[in-house]
């Protein structure tokens, strides 16, 4: 049943300072409301915790994509529509644009934000694997100040984050790399649009000049572990080795040990493992040009 309106209060923050003051005054009492595409679904189901919601959607300090020599920074309120159409992101961070293009459908992409996707902390979210592969850093702000944390350490356990209740995500930044990588992103859901991932795979790799070995590789996955997962052991199993059938088969085995898919309403453990393994091999074949 839908939520009962009088159980809720909401107000709009005037600016970032005002927002941080409200959040620090009574930590945990107020929850930020960004694009509302996750929160209003809970609301519709009568599952949104009653309480106070702080509308941050109007905050200019959390908006916009900025490009400097070393970083591309995205304000937390950057929408998928803004991400998928950004020329520098398309060129240098294509997996993030692919994730944005495959998130929900147009109306969701117009409202949903990158900050909301991160803070909602769903293991099935589609941008986190892209952010992990690109070494994203998250800027957290509170009335006490700002801090940058590596996204790789942001999710501690299922729905548990390093972010405190008095903090907001202000921005996400991606370090720009001079080296040329091949990028690979694949989301598997029940259909192309509007589907939550059963498996989501983001990878990038760099080949030796004219060799059959990777100099460097990055792999991260969604929907196959309690949190978005960077696969360090799998990466080590494919870097600096001849990519022959034996090495690939062994790396696939390690990959399947590193992930921990489960049975749930969207898929089964076995299906997820089989598909994740296949996509992993597809990643190697495509980025290595085998």
């Amino acid at each position, binding site marked *: 049943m839908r939520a009962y309106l009088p159980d809720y*209060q909401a107000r709009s923050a005037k600016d970032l300072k005002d927002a941080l003051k409200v959040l620090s005054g009574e930590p945990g009492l107020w929850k930020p409301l960004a694009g*509302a595409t996750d929160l*209003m*679904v809970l*609301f519709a189901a009568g599952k949104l915790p009653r309480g106070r919601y702080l*509308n941050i959607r109007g905050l200019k300090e959390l908006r916009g994509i900025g490009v400097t020599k070393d970083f591309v920074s995205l304000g937390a309120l950057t929408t998928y529509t803004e991400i998928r159409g950004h020329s520098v992101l398309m060129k240098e961070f294509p997996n993030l644009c692919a994730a944005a293009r495959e998130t929900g459908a*147009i*109306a969701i992409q117009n409202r949903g934000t990158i900050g909301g996707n991160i803070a909602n902390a769903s293991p099935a979210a589609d941008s986190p694997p892209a952010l992990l592969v690109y070494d994203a850093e998250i800027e957290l702000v509170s009335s006490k100040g700002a801090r940058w944390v590596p996204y790789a350490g942001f999710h501690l356990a299922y729905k548990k984050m390093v972010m405190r209740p008095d903090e907001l995500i202000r921005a996400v930044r991606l370090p720009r790399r001079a080296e040329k990588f091949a990028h690979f992103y694949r989301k598997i859901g029940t259909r192309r*649009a*509007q589907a939550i991932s059963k498996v989501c795979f983001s990878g990038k790799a760099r080949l030796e000049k004219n060799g059959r070995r990777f100099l460097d590789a990055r792999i991260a996955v969604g929907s196959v572990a309690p949190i978005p997962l960077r696969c360090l052991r799998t990466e080590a199993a494919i870097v600096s080795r001849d990519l022959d059938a034996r090495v690939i088969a062994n790396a696939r085995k390690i990959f399947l040990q590193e992930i921990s898919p489960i049975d749930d309403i969207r898929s089964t453990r076995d299906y997820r493992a089989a598909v994740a393994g296949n996509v992993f091999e597809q990643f190697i074949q495509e980025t290595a040009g085998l």
Partner: protein
Amino acid sequence: MILKIKVNGKLRKVDAHPMARLLDVLREDLALTGTKEGCGEGECGACSVMLDGALVNSCLVPAIQADGATVKTIEGLASDGRLHRLQEEFMKCGGAQCGICTPGMIMASASLLAKKKRPNEAEIREGLAGNLCRCTGYAKIFESVRSAR
């Protein structure tokens, strides 16, 4: 809160709860029942409207986020007593059967055509991917949009 929204060209003031859904404000407070409710959770697109020029699911927009905004609903598409090109084509091509999905389909199509005058087949499918129809099987909906390009 007293919500100020410009709906289909007219400034309206509505006394609404800040967490009320824009969908309910439109249908129940402003009597604009052209916008439909299907799923109430962002999946079906029946509630699609334009908010500050961007296609949104009005079931997912809390009233507080529509304050000061410009909204266009299906009722605002016709002008000077003449139907919008898309409305004509949906009628001609049989793009509507029961009609529940139709306002949303047309708003999504209008949003697509506003961005891209001549979308190709893939772009039409992507533009309407967030809109479900239980009657037509989609072929005639796509045909309606193709004819309106």
